[in-house]
């Protein structure tokens, strides 16, 4: 597999992860999966599991029938204990050690609780989980998560479900530069394929989308649009974008312009 996305010990051809919540029907979800060809499907255990591990089986059967590996999450958990319990239950139900860890610190914008997140990560890794933590773009938090043993990080672009796109582009790009060798997947807050394309161009390894697809007027079309954007963004990143210049640089040699004009131009750049 050329240019695979490596998450822990597995490689994936696709660089998009798709959430399974809030589609109009299981069939529509299935079609969105087929249209976007995601590496992993995230599944929220919590609400479906009220009646023990067999409740909601029909829905999971439909999701499983798409043949994609599942990535359970701890959506909606507000405490370390809740998140750890949910993760343990998810491991049993979905038969996977992977867990997308969410510990929510604020009910209004569903922002990660950095302290609880690190604590839960330590606990879960001790229990043999492979944790994909949903975090902010804070560099020190990310380092702590790596210290705890995470091999993937999932920084947000903006609060969950807002569709705002990267709120803090500088910090995200800086994070990419400071943590160059760990897969970083942008999770939460993307609204448009152009947002996804942009973060892929910056060198992020993948994106996770749910609401941006499921709450589009035509989710299946939007799933396809995101998949294309992620691929193109990745291609652009690999192609090595040109450096940004402050002033126009002609693409053809401008014969006839005296060299002292060129010299002026460089001088003006230096004084900026």
């Amino acid at each position: 597999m050329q240019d695979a996305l490596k998450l822990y010990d597995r490689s994936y051809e696709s660089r998009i992860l798709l959430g399974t919540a809030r589609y109009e029907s299981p069939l529509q979800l299935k079609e969105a999966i087929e249209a976007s060809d995601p590496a992993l499907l995230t599944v929220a255990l919590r609400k479906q599991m009220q009646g023990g591990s067999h409740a909601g089986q029909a829905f999971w059967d439909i999701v499983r029938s798409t043949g994609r590996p599942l990535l359970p999450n701890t959506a909606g958990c507000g405490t370390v204990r809740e998140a750890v319990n949910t993760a343990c239950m998810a491991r049993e139900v979905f038969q996977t050690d992977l867990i997308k860890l969410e510990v929510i610190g604020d009910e209004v914008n569903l922002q990660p609780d950095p302290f609880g997140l690190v604590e839960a990560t330590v606990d879960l890794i001790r229990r043999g989980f492979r944790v994909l933590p949903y975090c902010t773009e804070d560099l020190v938090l990310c380092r702590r998560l790596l210290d705890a043993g995470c091999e993937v990080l999932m920084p947000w672009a903006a609060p969950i479900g807002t569709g705002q796109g990267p709120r803090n582009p500088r910090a995200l790009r800086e994070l990419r530069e400071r943590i160059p060798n760990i897969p970083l997947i942008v999770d939460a807050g993307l609204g448009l394929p152009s947002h996804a394309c942009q973060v892929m161009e910056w060198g992020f390894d993948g994106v996770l989308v749910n609401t941006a697809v499921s709450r589009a007027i035509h989710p299946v079309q939007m799933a396809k649009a995101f998949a294309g954007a992620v691929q193109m963004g990745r291609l652009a990143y690999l192609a090595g974008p040109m450096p940004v210049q402050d002033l126009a640089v002609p693409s053809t040699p401008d014969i006839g312009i005296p060299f002292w004009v060129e010299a002026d131009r460089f001088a003006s750049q230096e004084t900026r």
Partner: protein
Amino acid sequence: MMKPDIAIVGGGLLGRLLAWRAVLSGLRVVLFDANDRLGNEATAWVAGGMVTPQAEAVDAEPELVAMGRRSLQLWPGWLRQLPSPVHYSDSGTLLVWQRTDAAEARRFETVLRTRDPHARYEHLNAEQLAGKEPALGTRFREGLYLPGEAHIDNRQLLPALADALEALGVECHWNRRVEDSERPEASLVIDCRGKNAKSRWKELRGVRGELVRLHAPDVELRHMIRLLHPRYQLYLISRPGGNVVVGATSIETDDCSPVSVRGALELLSAAYAVLPELAEARILELDCDCRPALPDNRPGVRYSPNARLLEVNGLYRHGFLLSPAVVEEVLTILPELLRSPASGLSESPRWPLLGARAEVLACR
């Protein structure tokens, strides 16, 4: 007695309605239901009884919206033909949202315009909203009014349909479960068992809905009220006798055990946010049931010529919204099936969506 034309197995909303309209169309009908004539075990017992094609458009395909519109035309006339009164109100729906969720309202409008060419709605400002629904006061800065949408008292309707059937001399076998292996004596058997037909229709799944019934005699609601929210779906409907129905959660599970604390909290806190006066209401019931749904969340009709068995199912959250349109459709295909039972289902004349499934299934 002559052999009946059709035996309907399952006397919930769909079974009763189909039996009644079939008798009125001149067919000989028998009905079997595992529970009694009150209908309190039916999925439709735990329901808002809403016929709200526009409000549902946000989660339903254009054809379902159109079917809902057809049902809205059929209900009033049908209800008038019933021997006992059933509360019906078509005062419309008011959609409200918290200031921070204004994006949900914009999305709703876009979806509605895309899916319903006949969409009719009005923007209301705080003052107009308070004028239309005084109970809301000026709590919400704006709202949308969807005129003409209706709700039916589900708990009056189910026994009223039983009354109608018995008055017409239909043989109704209440408290009589029909096993999959049994075949009632009739030219055609119609399976309307909803979630209980899962043994036969394996794609059926349950979608859990939880409701709260409140007694709030001081709260007067002139319209159905829906809260637009990115995570919760909430509606409030008044019922005769000072009651208010608050619904409904929607959870992917076959589990029909009692309402969870989380479900109750979600419903009650959202209801309280819309109408703080409900704080003093009394909780009469916390109800839960699983709605039968097919993978596409559309209703489905299928026919097995060998067994002479017609199955109608998958009304999902849309029992009251869709059942008249579905019943009307089934009645148009019945004469052909009774004339030549060996043939498959022909294309559904009015709703290609039902027909598409019928065609596929006929080929099996």
